[in-house]
């Protein structure tokens, strides 16, 4: 099947979508969602920690950055726009699960097909 946006071939096919995203395992859906958001925050926190560790390593080795300047830095207007977009993406990535649709997942696996995903 071709990519509907560009007609580039993607060799995909319609597939049967699972309903696993709607499952609730704890006492209510919000508790489930909070745990998922908590997990996402952990992932983002670890990514940040790793980046800081890499930066600190190169700073220490090359003496290329003054830590005081890092502490005092104010983003430029352009950076502010970019960083706020990144922030919003981070929030969407981490917390959008709180808005997910939920359902009771039981009985047979679904059999209804949906269109293939686009690039």
């Amino acid at each position, binding site marked *: 099947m071709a990519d509907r946006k560009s007609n580039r071939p993607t060799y995909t096919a319609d597939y049967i979508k699972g309903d696993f995203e709607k499952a609730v395992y*704890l006492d209510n859906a919000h508790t489930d969602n909070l745990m998922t958001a908590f997990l996402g925050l952990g992932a983002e926190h670890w990514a940040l920690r790793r980046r800081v560790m890499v930066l600190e390593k190169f700073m220490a080795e090359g003496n290329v950055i003054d830590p005081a300047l890092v502490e005092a830095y104010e983003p430029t207007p352009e950076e502010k726009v970019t960083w706020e977009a990144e922030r919003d993406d981070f929030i969407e990535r981490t917390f959008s699960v709180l808005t997910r649709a939920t359902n009771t997942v039981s009985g047979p696996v679904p059999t209804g097909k949906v269109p293939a995903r686009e690039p």
Partner: protein
Amino acid sequence: MLSRRTILATSAAAAAAVVTAAGTSQASTPSLDIKIDPYNQTAEQKALHTARFEKLDQESLMSFAEGFKSWNGKDLAGRGQRRITNAFLRSKGLTIGRTEIGYEECFNLMLDEPSFAAKIRFNRSAQALMWDRALRAFHGEPDRYLALMEETDNTGPGSLELNPGMHLPDYTVHEIHAQPGGYVGDPFAGWIYHWALTQAFYQARNQYDEVFTAIAQDCPKPDDGQVRRILDLGCGSGLSTMAYKERFPNAEVWGIDAGGPMVRYGHYEAVQRNLDVHFAQRLAEDTRFPDGYFDIVSDYLLFHEVTVPAAQKIMPEIHRVLRPGGVFYHDDSPTIGNPNVPMSLTVYAKARAWEDHRHNIEPWILGYRHADFPALMRGSGFEVDLTIRQNVHRKRAIFGIKPA
């Protein structure tokens, strides 16, 4: 520092020289058989086998998923998991041993135990996080990754056959492992599967294709030692297929899979590794190869992803395309009839199996578990070998020999 492509070019030249030297007398000498230690790879082998995300954050998010899945698997309820589960079951008047209670009922019973429910929640959320963050990496630059595959679709080494109009049985189009779009519905399914699997799915056990290299290295050869052609059934993104080519560089190696995006990525990756491997989008029950064409047919984790009726069609097809004396090398999850891997049927084990089946979308795994797979092999004419080989890292492997 050598780039990945530089290392590939150097290794390919060396491999080509070896193949040329051995190829002149291939018919009268045993097949070239390269030994690679999966767990002590050289720096060049690691560079060939790694699939590291380009951006630090992508790599870090996958690193977190890897660590968390590992922790959740063993530590969420602490070392008292068994004690907690047993006390819970006793409080409900249930046995802690084998039970006749159904899988779904076991799952629903265990959800009343808080640490189990939390473990399942985190397990599902970590799986979703793994797929989502990998998916975002490729869908964030769709034109780039489409272009990369377009560049290699019609180039070698090796070849790629895609059949976009072919009929795909419904059993092949589920979102297996809860991977968005499954193996057929996402243009980057092969990338997502390989890159997420490399780190997080195997929880650091496959960062350099160790699992797939070991599978290929462990495969027994036919008694006469001749390995001229190998078929890797349900090859997915081609990691095992490429590992066979690395072990048997002068063999004709094929990987087939129902998923077009999977074999397309497999071919792309084989070109990057300069491996002459053939990938085709075909069904395992209709391989379209001549009778007796292959010396070895292998499958890794194929049969639990097909229905029992499909398995009953695939097995005779494997027998048909193997030559007399050829080896069928099967490696999958536990199944009735394989005494080397006893299957646990406790409430807890059934609850986890139901989670895998229903919530991780393994629609056919329960059928596979309860099918007598060795009997199915024998019914198609195979001599079944359940011997645990010293070098085979997975004792669940089952070997079928087509009588000479």
